[in-house]
């Protein structure tokens, strides 16, 4: 009894002393060396640069944010032990990465009340109270961007329009392709459901592994089935193998990618096999696009590229936006009771159609609420265009227009309650 009294007295003293200019700590899990490093490096770099830029401008709560970036190589046990370390260090929030670690930590972050902003966009993370009965309540999980399911719903809506616009008659055929893992499978049910609603014929899904390999067999089946629209659920690395194999075999299908499935580096690696792939962008424009917020992004890019000449893939900008949302949530928390986990969570609910300061036209207006963590239902679709050999460095290819991202359209999905959580 005496011991606990002493302990709480000591804690109160410490709290009082540090409350005024409390140092804020943020954990950052990144994959710079593991199987998803090809997309993990630009995203992690974007988030790290944005946090460094925030510190250069004064930080949060008049103190620099202590960002601990850890490369966990997509090994879940390492992510879990790192998380435990951070809980001991009393971090205010964690910038997470992939589906594996996000899933493993959902239970823990809810218990320890630490907001986890992931780069995994699984729809199962969008239900904080469990009201949809489709997913476990995940009150402390956030992400910026449309979920995989909503992105696929958006792409299929466009696909239906595209079919009509091309003047084709009959039922278009849709097939879901990906590995048998939570990340590619996340939007499968949602995709096939809306495809049926929109009048597609849904073909049996085709599987291919998350590692690059030879997928001629899958492409032969694809060709044989006569599919018109195929969703590629894996990351860029294995999607490239499928694109190349299907080009060799001569498959005529419109590929639909997920946010991690296609980017400028992948286009360079796949060459003209990547031309024509339609995929969603989490940001309003790609690098050097025409938007007022690109100025801020260029400033942030200079943190790790002083010359300012590097071309940043789409994932970089998404990482920047994610970090900036966290920063503004922490700012709100600082003014409303201190930068602690529960307050940062409330900080995410501060505004509707929220764009971080200085990022207009780049980051999408996002809204998080107590009962709905689907931040945006706008699906911004772009098409990758490759017109020639891709031997040169990426900078040159972009400058001379060999690799280009063309805007296709922007689909605004209705915020249906029955679509939450799956």
């Amino acid at each position, binding site marked *: 009894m005496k011991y606990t009294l002493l302990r709480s007295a000591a804690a109160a003293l410490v709290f009082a002393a540090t409350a005024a200019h409390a140092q804020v700590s943020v954990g950052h899990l990144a994959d710079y060396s593991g199987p998803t490093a090809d997309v993990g490096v630009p995203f992690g770099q974007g988030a790290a640069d944005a946090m460094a830029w925030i510190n250069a401008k004064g930080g949060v709560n008049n103190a620099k944010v202590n960002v601990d970036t850890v490369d966990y190589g997509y090994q879940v046990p*390492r992510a879990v032990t790192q998380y*435990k*370390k951070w809980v001991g260090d009393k971090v205010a929030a964690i910038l997470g990465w992939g589906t*594996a670690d996000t*899933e493993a930590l959902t*239970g823990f972050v809810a218990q320890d009340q630490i907001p986890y902003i992931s780069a995994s966009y699984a729809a*199962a993370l969008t239900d904080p109270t469990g009201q949809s009965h489709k997913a*476990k309540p995940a009150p402390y999980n956030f992400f910026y961007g449309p979920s995989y399911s909503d992105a696929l719903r958006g792409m299929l809506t466009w696909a239906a329009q595209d079919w009509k616009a091309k003047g084709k008659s009959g039922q278009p055929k849709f097939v879901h392709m990906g590995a048998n*893992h939570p990340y590619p499978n996340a939007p499968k049910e949602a995709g096939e459901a809306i495809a049926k609603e929109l009048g597609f014929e849904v073909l049996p899904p085709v599987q291919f592994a998350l590692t690059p390999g030879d997928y001629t067999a899958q492409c032969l089946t694809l060709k044989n089935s006569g599919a018109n629209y195929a969703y590629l659920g894996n990351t860029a690395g294995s999607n490239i193998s499928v694109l190349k194999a299907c080009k060799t075999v001569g498959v005529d299908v419109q590929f639909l990618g997920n946010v991690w499935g296609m980017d400028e580096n992948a286009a360079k690696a796949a060459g003209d096999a990547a031309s024509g792939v339609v995929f969603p962008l989490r940001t309003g424009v790609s690098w050097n696009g025409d938007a007022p917020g690109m100025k801020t992004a260029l400033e942030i890019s200079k943190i790790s590229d002083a010359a300012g000449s590097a071309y940043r893939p789409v994932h970089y900008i998404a990482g920047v936006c994610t970090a900036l949302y966290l920063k503004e949530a922490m700012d709100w928390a600082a003014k409303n009771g201190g930068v602690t986990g529960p307050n940062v969570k409330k900080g995410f609910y501060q505004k509707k159609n929220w764009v971080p300061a200085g990022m207009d036209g780049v980051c999408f207006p996002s809204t998080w609420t107590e009962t709905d963590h689907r931040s945006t239902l706008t699906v911004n679709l772009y098409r990758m265009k490759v017109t020639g050999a891709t031997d040169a460095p990426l900078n040159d290819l972009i400058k001379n227009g060999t690799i280009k991202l063309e805007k296709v359209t922007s689909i605004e999905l209705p915020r249906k309650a029955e679509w939450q959580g799956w």
Partner: protein
Amino acid sequence: MATQSLLPAGDFRTSYAADTVIFPTATGRWAAVASVVLLCFAPLVLSQYWLSILIQIGYLAIAALGLNILVGFTGQISIGHAAFFGLGAFTSAYLSSKLSVPVFFSIPLSALITAMIGLVFGLPAARLKGLYLVIATLAAQYILLDFFSRAEWFTGGTVPAIAEPFRIFGFTLRGDRQYFYVVLVYLVLSFVLTTNLMRTRDGRALVAVRDHYLSAEIMGINLTKYRTLSFGLAAFYAGIGGALYAHYQEVVSNEGFTIDRSIVFLAIVIIGGLGSVMGTLMGTVFMVLLPEAMEWVSALLRGSAIDQALALRNNIAFLREIAIGLVIVLFLLFEPDGLAHRWRRIKAYWKLYPFSY
């Protein structure tokens, strides 16, 4: 092949009971009891991070104990152990959340179910030797993993399986400080049971199968029975370890049971010392602390003078991986019989000091 004798030569016993005692010396007995008592106080003193490391050592050591029975005591090889670990985890999660079995019972129950499935895999494996056995267990690993990803009624599919937290007499034991005791109890039980197994008739039969199976068969030991039994036992321990893992995480997904984890289990058993119960614990501590130590070293290096000089930056992660691989390779080059052997040599040195030559 290094043969481990159950009792070192040079000890004098007068009765059979004295010969098969678990702790040959009083010091050993007191050291074991004292360490368990000390561990009971750990949650009051250590931080959550260190407790999570200890919990991880706990459930991995239990599963590795099973593998040691299979590899060290019976002389088989298995690189599919992580699949049974996963089977235990998913079974316990399924029993506790879908069938509402209290967690206290779902852990042993899932271990039994995993053991039965281990027996099923053990039957054909008992006929195979050497490389064929290695590859058959590799196939078992991939087949079970495939089953996990396709059996959505069992594992949940895209939404990971949920395991209920541990509840006993109305108290919920979750979080590092409380769950630690659950793992500690199971760890002590498993170790005592295994050490006891090795001094029974069946334990000696397993060792006989490993050392010279022809003579064992001549003596009347049924080879198929004991080889299958050891697979079942290995699966049982893996099931307990997996179930403890499941109720700690409260969320079980496919990604934690790949071939990499099987390799970690194998490394634990080999580095700890084949056929040594104490060696399993030492091997687990080694394999869990190795990545942490490397992470600590790389955190130190980050931003330091060496980092600037070699322009490492992000490549520190690769250096860490290379270091882990190198440590394993070098350890095996210089001490192929494992940590237990080294520990025994150290004890022997001090026992005979200063005449240890």
